């Protein structure tokens, strides 16, 4: 399973790689990282249908996670991939907008990786 992680914080890459080191070692999951919404779109356009799941932060400079979500769900990829939003804002408004735009799930920071792994199992 290929997962695209979008976040402007570079340390996110190290964190995911360590948290999922067993899954990566066994080849169960393959991670790709993008550090902005724009970068994510470029990747998705070049590698259509490769990513099964997209994990995106909402609050990023430039294109926000919600704008990225809108692009993915409405303008590009058919069928659209699964998109989970990760944000520091646990408020209802963000949650509702994300749902409206077609987000499949919604996680808040700090990320609970045990719960995330459970969710991934149901997708694969």
């Amino acid at each position, binding site marked *: 399973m290929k997962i695209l992680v979008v976040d402007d*914080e570079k*340390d996110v890459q*190290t*964190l995911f790689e*360590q*948290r999922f080191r067993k899954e990566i070692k066994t080849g169960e999951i393959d991670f790709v990282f993008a550090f902005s919404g724009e970068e994510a779109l470029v990747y998705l356009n070049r590698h259509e249908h490769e990513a099964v799941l997209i994990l995106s932060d909402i*609050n990023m*400079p*430039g*294109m*926000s996670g*919600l*704008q990225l979500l809108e692009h993915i769900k409405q303008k590009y990829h058919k069928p659209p991939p699964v998109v989970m939003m990760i944000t*520091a*804002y646990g408020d209802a*408004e*963000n949650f509702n*907008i994300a749902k409206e735009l077609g987000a499949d799930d919604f996680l*808040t*920071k*700090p*990320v609970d*990786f045990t719960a995330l792994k459970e969710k991934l199992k149901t997708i694969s």
Partner: protein
Amino acid sequence: MDEIVIEKETAAVETISRIDELNKQAWEVHITQPKLALELSSEAKQLAEDNSYQKGLAYAIRNMGVSHRYLSNLETALTLSFQAKDMFSEIGEKSGEAQSYVSIGALYYYMGDIERSLDFFLKGLRCSEEVGNKEAQAYALNGAGYVYGVVLGDHKKGLEFLEKALTLSKEINASNDLQPRVLDCMAEIYLNDGQMEKAYEASFQCLRLSEQSSQKIMKGDSLFTIGNLFFKQNRLDESKEYFSQSLSNSREINYKVGEADCLLHLGKILFLQKDAEMAKEYFLESLKVAEDIKAKAMIYKAHEALAELYESKEDIQSFVKHYKLYHKFKTEVFKDEQESKQKYLNIQYEMERLQKEAEINRLTNVVMKEKNEELEKKTGELEQSYNSVSVLSKIGQDITSTLDLDTILNTVYENVNQLMDATVFGIGIYKPEEASIEYRLSIEEGKRYQPYERKMSDKSQLAVWCIENNKEVFINDIQKEFSKYLTDIDYTVPALVILEDGSMPKNPNSLIYLPLQVKDKIIGLISVQSYEKNAYAEHHLDILKTLASYTSAALYNAQSYQSLQLALNELKMTQDQLIQSEKMASLGELTAGIAHEIQNPLNFVNNFSEVNKELLTEMKEEINKGNMNDVIAIANDVIANEEKIHHHGKRADAIVKGMLQHSRSSSGQKEPSDINALADEYLRLAYHGLRAKDKSFNATLKTDFDNSIGNINIIPQDIGRVILNLITNAFYVVDEKKKSGIQNYEPSVSVTTKKLNGKVEIRVKDNGNGIPQKVLDKIFQPFFTTKPTGQGTGLGLSLSYDIVKAHGGELKVETLSYEEAEQAGKESTGSEFIIILPV
């Protein structure tokens, strides 16, 4: 006639009579048609010069001078009048000389120089008496009477002069313009003296006469006086009617002084009728007219009215501005106190007369020993009184040069002993709202009383009588004379009052009480007392009156100053509160951003520490298996993760500290700070803060930091506040532009730092719509904001400016507004704020 016979040699008879005729015509029309008079007299001047006809030339210049006066060109008029006066005196033409003195006196009056004005009127009077020119004499009497009665407030003396002037003007010529002029002056004095009936009678008579003889200026003046009469009686609608008539009359004949005065009074009426906006317009227009002709006396009145208006609107800044200007111009006009001038000039005039009388006596050889002795005695008294005047004017300067109440009181006391017996001396401040007189300073034989109060209800007190009747108390034998004022007398000061050495006050035999007055308001009283009988003569009373007028002015100024000081303190307190609320408002904008910013490091701290737990468990297993290579690899990961935990922990710590620093009052301590880190931190906080509030907000952030800057010495929370403010503003303007729906617009904000020669530059740039030129010079002013009401305090940039200035730096802006760019056919470049700090 003699001169003409001599002149015959150099000029033809016809030319001379032509010049005389031109001069005569010019003089006749100089009031009603000053422009025509100027043309006629210019022609006369040219002819007289060509033919070396000195007398004709002098009269032509005199006429040009008076014409300019009625065209409101006061300075030109003054120069010409002096020129004419010198020529007249050179050729011995006394009538012309006398007339010139009077013209100059009038001009000085209009220019606000009362001392010179009175001096020249009196010179004109002497000169015209000598030569027997009744017309000039009447004009001089009128001028001097006006200055005495109206300007200096000596009603009795003013009316005396004016009645003489009226009699003379009736004698010489009925069609003369003087009669209405004298009546107008008399009306004004009657008005000030409270004799309303007589005032109305005189002013309506004046209006009638001036209408009959179609003298526009006089008509305007009398309309003004009538307006003023109604104004004084608070009959505002009638007053407005007459002032308006006078205004249009003044405008018709281009009579600027009259125009300014009418505008001022119309403004005052509007102000009383609560139409402050219109009143302001009138005051400003009056000020403008007065400034055009440099009429200082009008200028200060206009500033006074404006100050009062702004005070009522609680616009403290404008109030202070106009109050200062009012004070400045008033001080210029009344540079040397009026009363001392009046006395000084009286004495000079009287002394000269006395000397002349003595001279005549000597020449006619009439030995009148007694009279001579009397004269000598008089001269001696006058000299003594002249000396008193010198001392007085020195005291006047001392008193009026301070604004501190106690200093004023002490200065008055220290000096009063030089002039009279002041064994007991006291100054009371009248407090109408408390119905009492407060004695701040009372002294007996050099020993002070404790401050005490006297109730106005205590009718057995001479002080209370003095205030209630607004009249002097003048007693030289208390037992015999107190009944002139009171039926019953109680000497005792309140029982609690004893002198500072514990002794009791003694009863005086002679005493003077004088009310202290400013305009029509009683502000207190001054008193001197002596144990001796007959301690005070009339001239002591006069001296004390002069002293009282200084004291009044000084106390009034001190009180005004105190209330000004109070207003300023209040203003400062309000400002402090506003600054605090501005800090809190920007903190509120930040909290959401901070919440977000704290979650990010926490995410790493939590997760990396959990990863480490797992890794350490794995490491234990590997150790047991003996796979040392794996153990080392895991240990390296653990160390790297620990470093990340530490890094993000510190990041969270810095965010919280930053927030606390922002809300705290500035410690005021400069410390070496990393300006790049500061700028980066506040950029992120501001961005996330705005994003948290408005999900749709979006902008490209660009940073370009110069890493060679190193640490610079600043108060970090203050400079942080400036950067935050500039960034927040930048976000606001790009967001506004985005929301206006411009196609293909990408909001962008950049922060750049750069090390320059001995300086550091921080630039915050946006690509918004720029700042229009017309508001550019206002953006650093407190309370200026372009945001909708309730959204901005208008203090952000003003505070930023102050902070940067306090660091010895500069805060500038470079901008090209959208509208101006469009006009120039260019793209708007947005705005760039530049902080320049010394290293």
